[in-house]
């Protein structure tokens, strides 16, 4: 009897991926080798068992509430006016009970995403000359329309969205400040560093949008940056509850 079939050939046989010539060789071997036949049977059983796994698994409770909260915090979708929602009901971000999530990891993702996003987006709009982006020297200013109200105005289509974000952020930021004592110093440091980065990204995206009000991609980017700030503060608040 010839040598046993290699594992790759057994797999290809089960998957129907053998050439006609190989197929004949393999069949010949299988006809006379019980071991290899067993291996093929086992592979087929594994495949059948896997295909028989239930297509759906009950998601953990509360998942929809989390999704809904995130969506609400995001306000209107970019490119969609807020008008489909009542203007007097700003999105609410409930603070979830329960164990803290891996928000540090989330913060890292946020930082990665933000560091590469804006420059690429602003510089690479198809064929259009690069938009001059005013780098902000004071990234710590969290709200562009804070006290003085001197910040240039975003396009009307985005104003309601921004207002909703700012309401939310004010609330979340207050909660974060109130809970600082419950947080580890390293946690506070990471959150504050992340906030600086996000604020800088917000300021940059906002300036770009003011300069180019019709640019939906910039509106989307600004919205994403606000949403990430909401998420960061929300997770920070959660982490202090444990």
């Amino acid at each position, binding site marked *: 009897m010839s040598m046993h079939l290699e594992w790759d050939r057994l797999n290809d046989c089960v998957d129907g991926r053998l050439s006609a010539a190989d197929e004949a060789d393999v069949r010949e071997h299988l006809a006379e080798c019980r071991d290899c036949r067993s291996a093929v049977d086992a592979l087929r059983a594994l495949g059948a068992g*896997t295909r*028989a*796994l239930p297509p*759906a698994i009950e998601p953990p409770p509360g998942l929809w509430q989390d999704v809904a909260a995130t*969506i609400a915090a995001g306000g209107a*979708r970019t*490119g969609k006016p807020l008008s*489909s929602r009542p203007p007097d009901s700003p999105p609410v971000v409930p603070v979830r009970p329960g164990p803290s999530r891996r928000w540090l990891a989330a913060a890292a993702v946020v930082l990665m995403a933000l560091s590469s996003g804006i420059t690429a987006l602003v510089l690479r709009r198809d064929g259009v000359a690069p938009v001059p982006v005013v780098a902000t020297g004071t990234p710590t200013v969290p709200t562009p329309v804070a006290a003085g109200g001197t910040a240039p105005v975003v396009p009307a289509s985005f104003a309601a969205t921004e207002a909703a974000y700012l309401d939310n952020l004010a609330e979340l930021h207050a909660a974060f400040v109130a809970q600082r004592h419950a947080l580890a110093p390293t946690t506070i440091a990471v959150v504050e560093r992340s906030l600086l980065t996000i604020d800088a990204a917000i300021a940059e995206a906002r300036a770009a949008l003011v300069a180019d009000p019709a640019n939906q991609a910039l509106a989307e980017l600004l919205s994403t940056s606000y949403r990430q700030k909401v998420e960061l503060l929300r997770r920070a608040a959660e982490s202090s509850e444990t």
Partner: protein
Amino acid sequence: MTLPDPRDADAAHEAALVSRARQGESEAFEALYRSTAGRVFALCLRMSGDRERARELAHDVFVRAWEKLPGFRGEAAFSTWLHRLAVNVVLERQRGERRRQAHEEPGLEEDDETPAMRRVVRIDEGDRLDLEAAIARLPTNARTVFVLHEVQGYRHDEIAQAMAIAEGTVRAHLHRARRLLMEFLSR
């Protein structure tokens, strides 16, 4: 994809929900969530091998779906579109983690073939949970390829494209996954 098309009535109902959700109606989106969350969560759980991770992934999938819904033009069934989106979200996350960890290569770690693969493994109803657990134990790339191929029904070339690896590598991951599963299950 081998996902069955919903029946016509369901499809019409779904299309109506999608249309309302695209207008920003969150109740319609919630209805879509209710009808698809189980499958999306199963996909996230099997591809990640971790419940907590799967929860985060499924969350991201639906948030992304909400954001991208205005761009959904109904060329495919919503469930098909959503599953592709879910696969992309999971793969993106894995790529991000690989970059951060920097040491895990997308290639194959070689290990010896063992006689275990020659043993007959029977998988019946009672062994389902063992199989789920065994899939969860697989190395990331092997698990990803196995789930996409065996559970989701993607072809080798589709997986290669989605994961940005060679087709030969897909095949190697798949064969390795099966060998490891047989080892895990025959203990």
